[in-house]
């Protein structure tokens, strides 16, 4: 328990990222509206970026952009690798969001609603209509 408390006070970036991830996850599970579901997925993505960036951060060091004429020292800059990984994460998140929203738009064109419950009910009705016309 003391370990946990120490973690919450010292590593508040990581703790915040995990709680944000949980909020996004709960949003993904509980929302009925499909667009709000994908907003939850985006919140989860944001939590992952926060986690990665906090792993690469070093207190007192600056952004990794060298000065011309001076030797770049590792003791001056933060870790650049998590920054590059966050870039990958952002690109993948944009692509996944675009693709899923396109699917949602197709669903809306077919059923005229964004609510997952209603879509499931209408889908069942359509299947019954097909089986006994």
């Amino acid at each position, binding site marked *: 328990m003391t370990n*946990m408390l120490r*973690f919450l006070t*010292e*590593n*508040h*970036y*990581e*703790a915040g990222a*995990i*709680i944000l*991830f*949980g909020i996004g*996850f*709960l949003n993904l*599970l*509980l929302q009925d509206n499909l667009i709000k579901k994908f907003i939850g997925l985006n919140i989860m993505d944001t939590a992952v970026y926060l986690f990665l960036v*906090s*792993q*690469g*951060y*070093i*207190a007192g060091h600056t*952004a*990794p*952009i*060298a*000065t*011309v*004429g001076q030797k*770049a020292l*590792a*003791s001056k*800059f933060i*870790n*650049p*690798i*998590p*920054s*590059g990984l966050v*870039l*990958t994460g*952002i*690109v*993948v998140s*944009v*692509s*996944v969001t*675009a*693709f899923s929203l*396109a699917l949602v*738009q*197709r669903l809306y*064109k077919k059923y*005229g609603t964004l609510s997952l*419950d*209603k879509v*499931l*009910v*209408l889908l069942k*009705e359509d299947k019954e209509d097909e089986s006994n016309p």
Partner: protein
Amino acid sequence: MKENGGKWEKFFKWINGETTIDSVILENSRKKRFAKRKLRHQKAKFIALRLKHSKRRIQEIICIIVAVVFIGILLKTASELPTCGKPDNPVNNEVSERYLEKGVEETGSINLVSGMILDYRAFDTFGESCVLFTAVICVAMLLKRDKNNIDPIEDQELKEDEEIKNADGSLILKFVARLVIPFIFLYGIYVILNGHLSPGGGFSGGAIIGAGLMLYSTAYGQENTRRFFTYETFKKVSATCLLIYCFSKGYSFFTGGNHLKNIIPKGIPGNILSSGLILPLNICVGIIVACTMYGIYSFFTKGDI
């Protein structure tokens, strides 16, 4: 004077929330069209509500329990992590040290992140560009309005939207867009060309240019954007940029080089024409991202570029 009075009257009507006769008729026809759909919905809503009261309640409780347990496990695991912000954490190992200390010398790029993602890890960035391109192809597959995906009702709705938009005129938007758009494009090009010297690069600059294209298309309509950016140009430009990227980094498979050497000389670090292949690759990535952003936007709004 009379003309002016008419305009003012229209403006007052718009302020008061009254609409012109045309749009009222349009609204009515749209309402009729949706009446049938609505009936079906109400039935579905009724069933969904009934479901909610019985099954949903238990489902929600289970979901909350699962999420809380999940957060607890993650927090417990993460509490074993070293303290954030210490220079001797295991994340800051010899790999990042090498990237930071030898980066300027080996890649010729002042911005060390740029040097990392476009030289040491260029294949990673190539994968990212491919992911973006695949996403826009998937969106086009789902939403493009071609001969397999035509709905007469939707066509009419789009036409009506266009009419309402033309009747409004959107003066403020057009005026502000005319002022702002050149600077947006200029800034985007600056960010792309200075990707190896300052914060920024292909992805951020491309996103800025894409935003400028979206603003232009919103203010002046898609017909005006089509004068210089059609589906054909979109296809050709983004495929060419991907191929250039692929060949400029993929040739080392055939030459068998261990370190990916630049064909172009590195130049003096700090000059705009330096750092070998990073500048052309930044331009390629920027064009791909700009095309992708604008493509996704226009497929979602009008179903075509």
